[in-house]
């Protein structure tokens, strides 16, 4: 069988990107070849370097070029707070939206027995070592409230209990600006169970 042409190989390779089907891949390939060779070369070299050099931070498992990521290397963060999240992108969201100044730990997914994702795949052994060796006062679980997320939270909470580390999870409830009428019943029940006092001064 003859090898597919380089053009076809490029189109096929571009399809590994999320949301890129055959048509978009073809458009991208023609754009790079006909109008932006320089951009294409640049993309290729950066992509190559990134694939080669970016790996997981050995402390928090986020993506980083260094052994320790920028946040883990910062000395002025609060070592006694550890926030467990699913994906590296959530660090950015939490950093932008909250005044959390502790450390992070990135799981990279959730426990899902039916997909064969167990505790090792999420680096929970590394988390356990940290619970054991570092002086953590509060472990904050910022994990999606799906069924798999709850299983993950429960597993980590049991692990933290073993080392007497206080564990909290972020609140679940009605989104800001949301209308109660349209909130799903389960969420509403959670929001009701977790109600808080209102300041009455």
């Amino acid at each position, binding site marked *: 069988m003859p090898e597919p042409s380089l053009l076809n190989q490029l189109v096929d390779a571009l399809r590994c990107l999320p*949301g890129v089907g055959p048509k978009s891949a073809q458009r991208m390939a023609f754009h790079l070849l006909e109008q932006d060779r320089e951009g294409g070369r640049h993309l290729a070299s950066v992509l190559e370097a990134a694939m080669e050099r970016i790996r997981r931070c050995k402390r928090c498992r986020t993506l980083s070029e260094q052994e320790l990521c920028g946040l883990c290397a910062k000395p002025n963060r609060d070592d006694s707070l550890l926030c467990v999240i699913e994906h590296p992108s959530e660090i950015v969201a939490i950093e932008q939206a909250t005044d959390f100044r502790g450390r992070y730990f990135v799981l990279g997914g959730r426990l899902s*027995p039916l997909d064969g994702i167990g505790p090792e795949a999420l680096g929970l052994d590394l988390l356990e070592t940290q619970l054991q060796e570092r002086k953590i006062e509060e472990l904050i679980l910022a994990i999606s409230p*799906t*069924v798999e997320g709850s*299983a993950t939270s429960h*597993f980590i909470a049991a692990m933290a209990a073993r080392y007497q580390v206080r564990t909290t999870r972020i609140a679940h409830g009605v*989104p800001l600006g949301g209308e109660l009428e349209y909130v799903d019943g*389960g969420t509403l029940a959670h929001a009701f169970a977790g109600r808080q006092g209102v300041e009455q001064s």
Partner: protein
Amino acid sequence: MASRSDQAARDHLQRCFVLHRRNFSNTSLILDIFSAIHGRQAVLAKGARQHRRGRPAGGEILQPFRPLWLSWSGRGEVKTLIRYEAAGPAAELPGKLLYCGFYLNELLVRLLRRGDAHENLFAFYAAALTALAAGEDVETVLRHFELRLLREIGYAVELDREAGSGRPVAPGRYYVYEQESGLRAAGTGDGRYALAGELLLGLAAGEPLSGPAAKTAKLLTRRLLAPYLGTRPLQSRELFRQHRNLSL
């Protein structure tokens, strides 16, 4: 015939549970569902993870352990979800009970063939989830579900009769379960594998289990299920084991 049932599925919302969901492309989900009438089906929920102007698309109710009304269309192996509504609140399975829920789901995914109808089993499954959520004894719920599952998929095990002779199992006597044939009266040398008559009758009648009997029953159903599960270990069982190691 097929086209008529297709049409029916399209028009009517069916009682279903999601057994498993996984992300598909940017905004969709592929669901492994268990329907009362159509059995296990693979269904594509297009756009169920899409947020429109910050508002969730509603796909968050497509979670395991939640009774749902679903309708779908299509003839291929993977159907397309048309409508979905919650048929009630999700079974509240805190902590370890959640692993039990995963276990039930994994058994169904592994043992049911796509498209085989199992109306009774659907009712048993819903009842098992309710019983777990209500705090009933976990071992009892799981063992009875396992036995019913075996019966529904055509591998019923007679626990109240000896194989061959057909003599009824009697309390106070001991028995051994042989994988190929079934129950036989225990002889000398069977000590380790012997099952008490009371336990077998209790299992056959769906009675609650307690103490050491629960442990023996667990080993028995594990042996009964093993030939149909194949060599791949059950992941939810593994998760259970790892969790137990944590609390040691």
